[in-house]
């Protein structure tokens, strides 16, 4: 009888692999919502990723043509619901710019303070959820412990825990509470200690490092070409932050650094977020020292009717570059509003950077992009 060697062509022919497709989502815990990824696989290795969006598309751009400006702010909360305050702000910026509304000093400071607190809360949640994605369930409790303090404070000021509707055209509707200052100090001090714990618990953990270092590398050039923003862009080594490079509001008055990564892998995107939290604490501490007295809302605002024309403004949310393009016909309702969301652009790089990795790495990459699905679909 003839012996068949394992290297013979017959064996190779009989054992060849075949590509197949797997649906990840729309109901999958690591997609953080209803995102469906169709993965073309060879064994465990991803050959192609095809994202299918739109499972939670609510047509907010169309809805924005139906109501008057002040009644549209609450729609933006429900886009990036983890940093809703910053989305409120992004909506108000072009309206104020087009109509020439000047926000009072104290109003701007309250916006910065609340916005940075919201950014911290969002990053705390990212820390917990990312740990959970990678199998570190403990991280979730640590992240939520600090987030709870921040959300409690935001609730005391705005009356809501998630959908704030707090930043209005012309300022903010209500001043901060009397016990705001000691509570902010308490949060800053607690967070500084907590960030060290986060580092020790997760970032120094060898499993976390193995799961993130070198995974999903996004080069500097591709990051810019795709128009990604926030920690994803900075993780790729681009020293760019809208608060510094294209400053809005009063961000040019604060002294803070832009943390950047080196390689553009999941690890860099993660440590950039952690470093960014320290910078947010710095901004909050400076803003508390400078906080002036006075009104928080522009006086005498009656009709919000931006003059005929187009305005484009952008703002740094917790996830990146959010832009609002406003076309006004001079009426009380916008003619057209386009919400350019950060997560939409951040997700668009996924097909490129997930090729060649395993399914488990796709979870790691997706978590490091920190996408919020309602922000993508709008």
């Amino acid at each position, binding site marked *: 009888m003839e012996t068949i060697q394992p290297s013979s062509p017959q064996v190779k022919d009989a054992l060849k692999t075949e590509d197949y497709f797997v649906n990840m989502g729309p109901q999958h815990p690591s997609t953080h919502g209803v995102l469906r990824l169709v993965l073309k696989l060879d064994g465990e290795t991803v050959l192609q990723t095809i994202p299918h969006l739109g499972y939670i598309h609510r*047509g907010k751009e169309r809805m924005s043509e139906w109501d008057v400006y002040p009644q549209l702010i609450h729609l933006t909360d429900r886009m990036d619901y983890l940093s809703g305050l910053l989305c409120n702000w992004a909506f108000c910026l072009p309206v104020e710019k087009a109509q020439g509304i000047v926000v009072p000093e104290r109003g701007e400071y309250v916006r910065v303070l609340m916005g940075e607190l919201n950014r911290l809360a969002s990053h705390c949640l990212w820390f917990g959820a990312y740990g959970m994605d990678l199998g570190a369930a403990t991280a979730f409790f640590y992240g939520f412990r600090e987030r709870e303090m921040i959300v409690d404070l935001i609730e005391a000021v705005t009356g809501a825990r998630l959908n704030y509707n707090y930043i209005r055209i012309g300022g903010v509707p209500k001043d901060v509470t009397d016990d705001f200052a000691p509570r902010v100090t308490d949060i800053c001090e607690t967070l500084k200690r907590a960030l060290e714990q986060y580092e020790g618990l997760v970032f120094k953990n060898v499993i976390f490092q193995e799961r993130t270092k070198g995974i999903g590398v996004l080069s500097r050039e591709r990051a810019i070409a795709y128009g990604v923003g926030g920690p994803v862009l900075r993780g790729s080594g681009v020293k760019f932050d809208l608060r510094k490079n294209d400053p809005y509001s009063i961000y040019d008055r604060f002294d803070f650094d832009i943390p950047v990564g080196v390689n553009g892998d999941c690890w860099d995107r993660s440590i950039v977020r952690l470093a960014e939290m320290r910078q947010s604490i710095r901004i909050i501490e400076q803003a508390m020292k400078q906080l002036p007295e006075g009104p928080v809302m522009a006086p005498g605002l009656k009709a919000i009717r931006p003059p005929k024309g187009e305005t484009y*403004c952008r703002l740094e949310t917790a996830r990146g570059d959010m832009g609002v393009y406003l076309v006004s016909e001079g009426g009380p309702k916008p003619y*057209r509003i386009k919400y350019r969301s950060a997560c939409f652009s951040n997700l668009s790089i996924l097909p490129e950077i997930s090729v060649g990795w395993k399914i488990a790495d796709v979870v790691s990459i997706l978590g490091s992009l920190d996408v919020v699905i309602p922000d993508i679909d709008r």
Partner: protein
Amino acid sequence: MDKDQLIAAVTAKFPSATADAGVNNVPCVLVPVADYRALAEFLRKDAAMDFDFPMCQTGVDWPEQNTIWSVLHLYSMSQNHKIEVKVALDRADPKIATVCDLWAGCEWFERETYDMYGVTFENHPDLRRIMMTDDWVGFPLRKDYRDSRIAGKPF
């Protein structure tokens, strides 16, 4: 470059373009559809322009003028300047060249504009609907779009 220099540079190179100062330091350039692709290449590749970051690409529907705008917002990381490029398209058959080989991020932006306004981007590698289902009828952000879900809403 400040916005006056930007406008001067663009209109010198493309006499068919009309420009206005716009709001918020974003100069606005309106070009005929035939020059759109050439202008995009100029903005991307010229060293003094160097627009490398796609901020936004979208459409605006104007049923009374029978046009749909394609609006492209660009930003330059190195030069720190912005520009808005507008093209008025025929509403009955809106067609325009793609720019997603110049700015990769425009691939999804253009898919969304196609999905919402029915603008066809020529030479786009993957022009499918992105938000709505593949068998959706109509273009939801056109002003005359109606369906039972939004009946009774003001238009």
